[in-house]
């Protein structure tokens, strides 16, 4: 079984972001970048499938400028077999990402596509669902457990009231939730080895996909900041404040 994993480079989840004063966006230069945490989980799951003898090849793909290759090398160091870098200077919206992935799927013919459930920058949570729609395949979103059984995937999903289990016919598109697994770290020898693994650069134009944006970001604003709070010295004072000042008790 071939597994395709899509990974995205984002601002590090622990970095404090700054909104540009002119409202044009978020400051990205000089920020620490890393692989989107949900994508790391997707890569880890693919590696575990390979270790279990279920996956034969893991292909990782990332879409973006040349810096996307760092993210791909990182995935190769973790255990992916080869990488595809779809090169573009544009920031693609989820629908365009899904169209690119569909095109790559039609060439690679994976049995399983793993993506993170959302990227922590745009917080869209759309790509897996859109890709499944475009390819007319089943979707297993927010997966916290994945079991491959012959021609189907049994997936446990994290839903609002608890958990839900679905059986999906392969090929299927799965999006990963935080509790699917705990990603490993790349060892130094593996990082060195990853430099020799194949990384294929594909100019986005060669895929003949409509990547025109459908949405204009008119302005990016900082959220309203909260007024400074006060510290209280005792439970009595806290209860008194909540009752008489905040009037919430």
């Amino acid at each position: 079984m071939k597994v395709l994993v899509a990974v995205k480079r984002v601002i590090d989840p622990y970095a404090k972001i700054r909104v540009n004063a002119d409202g044009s966006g978020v400051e990205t230069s000089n920020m620490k970048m890393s692989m989107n945490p949900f994508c790391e989980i997707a890569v880890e799951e693919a590696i575990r499938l390979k270790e279990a003898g279920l996956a034969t090849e893991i292909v990782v793909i990332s879409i973006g400028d040349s810096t996307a290759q760092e993210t791909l090398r990182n995935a190769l160091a973790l255990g992916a077999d080869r990488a595809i870098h779809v090169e573009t200077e544009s920031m693609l919206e989820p629908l365009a990402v899904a169209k690119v992935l569909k095109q790559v799927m039609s060439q690679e013919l994976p049995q399983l596509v793993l993506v993170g459930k959302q990227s922590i920058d745009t917080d869209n949570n759309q790509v897996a669902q859109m890709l499944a729609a475009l390819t007319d395949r089943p979707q297993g979103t927010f997966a916290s457990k994945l079991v491959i059984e012959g021609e189907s995937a049994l997936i446990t999903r994290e839903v609002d009231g608890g958990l839900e289990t679905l059986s999906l016919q392969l090929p299927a598109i799965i999006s990963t939730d935080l509790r699917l697994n705990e990603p490993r770290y790349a060892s130094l020898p593996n990082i060195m080895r990853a430099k020799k693994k194949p990384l294929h650069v594909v100019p986005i134009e060669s895929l003949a996909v409509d990547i025109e944006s459908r949405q204009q970001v008119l302005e990016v604003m900082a959220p309203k900041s909260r007024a400074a709070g006060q510290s209280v010295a005792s439970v009595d004072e806290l209860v008194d404040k909540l009752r008489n000042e905040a009037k919430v008790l």
Partner: protein
Amino acid sequence: MDSKTLVIAEHDNNNIAADTLKTLHAASQIGGDIAVLVVGNNVTAIAESLSKVKGVKQVLRVDAEQFKHPTAEDVAPIIVELSEAFTHFLAPATTFGKNLMPRVAALLDVGQLSDVIQIESSDTVIRPIYAGNALARVKSDDSKLVMTIRGSAFDSASTNSQEHASVEALEPQASQQTLARFIDSQQTVSERPDFSSAKVVISGGRGLGSKENFALVERLADKLGGAVGASRAAVDAGFVSNDLQVGQTGKIVAPELYIAIGISGAIQHMAGMKDSKVIVAINSDPDAAIFEVADYGLVGDLFEIMPELIDKVP
């Protein structure tokens, strides 16, 4: 062109999800007529009550045994079939809506606006990005707009309108079970209010130390009639189930009162609660980031503070 909005109702075949009513309220801000689609099994009563929601002009009911636990693969084609008549397609930004709507958008070849917190006009909305650390004002150029609505940012639509909408039963389509089949669900059973209706949320974090100690959070919640939440650390440590996680990737809450106990205040957690009206933080670490957003902060030993607090709140 006049807007016409289709709201996809979330329900469990017995009750309408609270976020559906919030989505209906958001739909009323777009202007134009509103229709609601109910897909399920034995949903006559639900369709009936939706017909009494303020602003709803039409209820479309697709009722069949195979839709008892409908998958996105089942519901998306139904919406696409109806899509000609509508300009806007809205669902709550719950796991239900997040799962379904991007599939619908892609089938319609349009983008989606996720987790909308404000509707400015029929094509422009505000939505949070970067875990709520920035807000984007976004205009869609698509001919049809697909959105999910963040419930905590909207009031609920009133459920006792004098004008009753018509309820229309639609022929069910074939199920897509060859692609995706529901096997079972494990629901967390709780007597406590759910996040979307709770006025008070008490959340616990790693600082509680164990599942047994987490009972302190539950006791305080029960005393205040509130819901129980948790940080990712508390969920990962097995103190509570994952559906109670508050944060960027869990639930987004905005109650009147949010009490964070033993929670340090990671960016990802704050994304889920910083729009609460009053925030209280109780933590032994005076430098914890949670104190930066707290209206009232109490530094000290949780195991001394909590029993006293449970005792002293009304």
